[in-house]
């Protein structure tokens, strides 16, 4: 699976029938440190993701066809999750960087503080979902 950020949407009327009534998003691949390697994917959205969100993408045919419940779908890339937080001790969190919560000029945060903050952040996300 791939971590990426949704950077745009694609509109298309003439396409394979499997794409009818499905949202196509442009996803920029992310590295653990948050910097984007110069690569992207066009993926079908299965979780109602939006532009700016950090997402989990599968790029494998059998899984994609299973998610779409379409045994002959000509696609490999499907967005299957929206990421709240990523915790890699000592590395910037690409999922949090997008919210502008840690501007580049802010003092460095210790790994322990960051882990706690990430857990709180993830907790908030779960609460919001369960409501």
């Amino acid at each position, binding site marked *: 699976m791939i971590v990426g950020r949704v*950077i*745009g949407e694609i509109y*298309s009327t003439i396409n394979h029938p499997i794409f009818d009534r499905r949202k196509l998003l442009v996803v*920029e691949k992310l590295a653990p440190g948050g910097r984007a390697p110069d690569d992207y994917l*066009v993926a079908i959205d299965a979780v109602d993701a939006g*532009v700016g969100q950090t997402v989990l993408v599968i790029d494998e045919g059998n899984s994609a066809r299973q998610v779409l419940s379409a045994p002959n779908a000509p696609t490999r890339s499907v967005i299957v999750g929206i990421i709240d937080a990523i915790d890699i001790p000592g590395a910037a969190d690409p999922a949090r960087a997008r919210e502008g919560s840690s*501007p580049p000029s802010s003092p460095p945060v210790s790994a322990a503080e960051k882990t706690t903050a990430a857990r709180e952040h993830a907790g908030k996300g779960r609460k919001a979902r369960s409501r």
Partner: protein
Amino acid sequence: MKIGRVIGSLVACVAYEGLEGVPFLWVQPLSPRGEDRGRPIVCADSTRMAGPGERIYYESSREAALALDPWFVPVDDAIVGIIDGIHLTPLAESAGEPRGETR
């Protein structure tokens, strides 16, 4: 899937069984911002409606073959849709820069 631009067509009078009548197009892969990426490739056109100058999205490998009928045919890449428009966030213009607010 990736984005590309059709730059031409080609004709193969002799093609492997199952590929007779399938249009083949010469496609230049693009970045989301529209810059050329790498060398042009040949795609089978499953929409049968794409033409030179149009932006399309294409799928590669086994899934490319699934776009065609009959589907068990030897193709590497297939056009699966024609793009009407791409809406990118301003954020996408500064790829590689530190991230800020996106909405």
